[in-house]
């Protein structure tokens, strides 16, 4: 974990309100594991926004770090206006990572909305470990699609769904995943997405392991402020920023 000033290499819109930002950092690119995130100070000496903003590292390529994000409020709005050559301060890599192994059977990866961002590098690593990977991605609508070509390259089967049915299956990614569980012998599932999606996943009572990446409002990102605490299954407090963001779905209350 380091505090770094980095120079933006590129920051471009890749879909409706969705941006991809990249910068050069040999340290981060080497230290990074799928699931890690960074805390970005979008504006120095700013009081609004005041706090850093957490974003997953979507993937790294050589010494370049790529971060996909959606504009939702003031912080991401300001970030979206940054240009090549502008400097931002980045704290990372933070949090734990997804368990990547060679699983003896198929692997399912289920993502919804901005939860899709951390899953790309995960799929890449899963393929590298010679797994067969089925990917289920859910978007709101056709105009919101991103990373589709990239996911095609790192998956064996890619299932796209949209809430409005404008492309792919009509419905969400968990519904599509559910229809495949019986026919496929999945050994493990990985997921990231909005809370309702993750609780739908939990209620499927999967017979295999399922790891999810969670989000919670964060102040410090390193386990010091206790703002991002969630309950574990035994009532113990877990911290999304430092014990997570990746958890075994059975070990946390969602």
């Amino acid at each position, binding site marked *: *974990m380091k505090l770094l000033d980095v120079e933006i290499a590129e920051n471009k819109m890749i879909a409706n309100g969705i941006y991809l930002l990249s910068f050069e950092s040999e340290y981060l690119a080497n230290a990074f594991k799928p699931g890690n995130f960074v805390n970005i100070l979008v504006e120095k000496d700013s*009081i609004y926004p005041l706090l*850093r903003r957490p974003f997953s590292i979507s993937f790294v390529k050589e010494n370049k770090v790529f971060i996909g994000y959606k504009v939702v409020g003031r912080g991401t709005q300001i970030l979206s206006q940054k240009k090549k050559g502008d400097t931002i301060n980045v704290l990372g890599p933070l949090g734990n990572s997804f368990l990547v192994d060679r699983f003896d059977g198929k692997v399912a990866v289920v993502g919804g909305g901005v939860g899709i961002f951390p899953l790309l590098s995960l799929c890449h690593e899963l393929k590298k470990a010679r797994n067969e990977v089925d990917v289920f991605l859910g978007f709101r609508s056709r105009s919101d699609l991103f990373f589709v070509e990239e996911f095609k390259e790192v998956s064996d089967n890619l299932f796209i769904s949209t809430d409005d049915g404008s492309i792919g299956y009509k419905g969400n990614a968990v519904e599509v995943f559910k229809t495949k569980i019986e026919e496929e012998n999945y050994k493990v599932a990985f997921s990231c997405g909005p809370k309702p999606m993750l609780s739908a996943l939990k209620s499927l009572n999967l017979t295999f392991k399922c790891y999810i990446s969670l989000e919670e409002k964060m102040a410090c990102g390193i386990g010091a402020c206790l703002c991002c605490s969630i309950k574990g299954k035994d009532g113990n407090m877990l911290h999304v920023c430092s014990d997570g963001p990746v958890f075994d779905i059975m070990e946390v209350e969602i």
Partner: protein
Amino acid sequence: MLEVEISGVKLKNPIIAASGTFGFGREFSRLIDLNLFGGISTKGITLKKRAGNPQPRLCEVYGGIINSVGLENPGVEAFIKEELPFLRRFDTKIIANINGFNKEEFIELAKILSPFVDMIEVNLSCPNVKEGGMIFGKDPNRVYEITREVKKVSSCPIIVKLTPNVTDITELAKAAEKAGADAISLINTISAMAIDIETRRPLIKMVTGGLSGPAIKPIAVRMVYECFQKVNIPIIGMGGIMNYKDAIEFFLAGATAIQIGTVNFVNPNAVSEIKEGIENYLKDHGFESVKDLVGNIII
């Protein structure tokens, strides 16, 4: 130049990490040198382990954040066994921030902890718990009573941390002084609230929480100034300090030392920047020591 003294405890510089914003130091030690701090006030400790409040516990507002962590902590025994030995490795004073739900708990905590730490900060001001905390801290009589009892059983200096959520904070300061407090620290967070106009729900699960950050600084400076007029014990000032200039304001208003909280989340390097800034300010303005600044406002 930077050394200050609080009731015989020498701080090599006047910068203290504020309770609740710095955990037990471990997390930040991976990022910055804890030796940079004159002192570290630990996350609020209770007798028993506490889970704290439900999510969401945090929201951001203009110039600040509202939190309702609710004193999540591992309890005093785990603190002494698992956290204190680590903290003790650094050349910085350790201040245990304690929280009771009744007078007896405060006394018990002070008894257990005072042999192990350099100072105790009695938190009579947490806005995020239903019993104890701010409820006691708003009443000068209770402040007097608890301070006196804690003082009796403690072998180390006692700092009483005051709440700003009262009409006249100097009443609390005077009560603490009269009861024998070695110092007071102020301010804890200001009771606050924010609403999401789309969902029409409060942004904090507990509805209200404590506001910290730059938004509260002018209020905090005023309160330090007012207390400085009324008491003779050292004041540790805090609330929205983001840089050395903010820190200087607190010294001029009457603070002997300062605590930095919210800024740690934004800029973990704040401590070294503020330290250097204070040093340069002293040199540039011909002061020999921080002590020369304390209360040195020109009205």
